[in-house]
């Protein structure tokens, strides 16, 4: 019994290591670039993931940002970080802002994330998504 269990545990761990190896070499992401890496630092430094989610992982106070670049254009995002609107239901507390350089890096980061093949998540919704534009014009 003991030996059988030990054998099974070893088999489990070996197969886990193997599929880890295969996965790490087959992540469905685009090629890395400098702008993206800078943007990733901005993303981490500001702790975005503790309000927003990315790939659905994070805090649930703010929206998921995985497919941001499919819905918004770069111009809109630049305006957004400059103008820092209050995000509803907030009225006075404004969204944190970024400098112009940081915004460009962040856009590169979000473009990279947008291009990742997420196995079809988030699912297609019944209605076309209608996003707020926060009076940025």
């Amino acid at each position: 019994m003991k030996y059988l269990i030990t054998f099974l545990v070893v088999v489990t761990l070996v197969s886990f290591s193997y599929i880890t190896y295969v996965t790490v070499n087959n992540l469905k992401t685009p090629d890395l670039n400098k702008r993206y890496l800078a943007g990733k630092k901005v993303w981490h430094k500001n702790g975005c993931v503790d309000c927003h989610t990315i790939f659905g992982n994070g805090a649930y106070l703010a929206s998921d940002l995985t497919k941001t670049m499919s819905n918004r254009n770069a111009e809109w995002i630049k305006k957004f970080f400059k103008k820092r609107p209050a995000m509803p239901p907030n009225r006075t507390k404004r969204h944190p802002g970024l400098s112009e350089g940081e915004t460009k890096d962040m856009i590169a980061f979000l473009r990279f994330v947008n291009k990742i093949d997420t196995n079809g998540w988030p699912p297609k919704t019944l209605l076309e998504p209608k996003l707020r534009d926060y009076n940025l014009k």
Partner: protein
Amino acid sequence: MGRFFDIVKQIVPFWSTNNNKKRSESEQSKIKTIEYESQRVSFKFLIAAILMFTFQVFLASGASIEFIIPDLPAPIPFNSGRAFHINLSVFWPLLGIIGGVYYIIPEEVGYDTNIKIANIQFWLTIVTLLLIYGSLSLGFTTGREYLEALLPFKILIALSLIIFFINILLTLLKRKITEWHPTMIGLVVGVFFSIIMYIPSMLTYKNIAMDEFFKFWTVHIWVESTLELIIASVIASILLMMTGVERKTVERWYYVEVFLVILTGFLGVGHHYFWIGAPHWWLYIGMIFGALQIVPVFFLVYTAFKSVKRQNMKTTNDLTFKYLWATVLWNLVGAGILGFIMTWPSINQYTHGTEMVSLHGHLALFGTYGFLTLTLFYFILPQWQRTKNLSMKKGNIAFWLLNSGLALMGISLFVAGVIQSYLLRYVGIEFTKVRELLVPYMIGRTLGGLIFAGGAIIIGWDLISNLLFKKSIP
């Protein structure tokens, strides 16, 4: 069936049992006492854990108000507070479990652990944790959920676990009994793989998908496999001590359980890899092994029922049993059943990233690890001279506050999660609009949280007042 009612009687408060008075005299002589000097190390760990738990409810209640009154001024931004909250939620039960391990090992192997090393580990962990909490509240973060602590601090945590592992191993090698107890093997394997799994996940990678991939080696594999191995042996050992059942009752299926926890826990990590840019075959691995994860939970339920059924004497207070039953129940509901529902990709695609996940996190993490730490607290601390007067009555009130608070929070978050999954992911209504619709349920969650906080504060205050004001009575 009669046995079942006895268990119900133990859980339901104020249910008068006829032999209550008769038993209390004979019970006094049977109450467990410390047998090995090094078991005293566990007091420190448990006290630190409970103090952190009490602190955490203030933080968590504050953060939950953000969902109801968005513009309320707060001392620290929401994201720092949330990082603080989730780091506390992982580390205080960890401290409690380490304390539990220090308590069971000497009795399991008949040899003292090294007290000096244990003390070094304790202070190293506490200082590191305080540094982590301080830096997080000041806004220093690595920006990865659950792993927000800065790298040097995470290295110190790994170091502390390595010291812990060495201490256990040295004790086991010097043991006096001739055969290895299965529980000790599970424990060593659990601690070893906790360290192995923590190291790759504390690093930050260039590829964000790689970051996410290794993150779950801590976030999932720790709580659903390696720490589960550790708590399985802690629960088995304290059941032996509490009920005096024969060892083979508890250990009969132990090896099978170890194998299942490793198999389903390690491969079940796949249900976090559905949508992060990993190959699509993770959908199948995560679905199958994620669903199988409910099997080891049933083993725990089975062991607990079996040992209480076959007990021949009771060596502890009833409160410990209550908290243990709560551990078993919430583990079954929060981790087992909820996890089982959410692990199917066809459901997960809608519930993922909604309040449903928050619900699962709260019920599974506090329900299993939190209640287990409280079980250990009420089992171990009354054996210490200074805290032997911990009020069982207050503990009982706190028990009901914690459970009802958690249940109310659970129901509110469940409804919120269903509504949010439907409107946001299925219908396609904009995020902030859905968030406004969820406010009533968020009020329910905060109310549940406040009731829960009441329980936590009672326990914390009881502990503090025992430590500070009541000098030891000879």
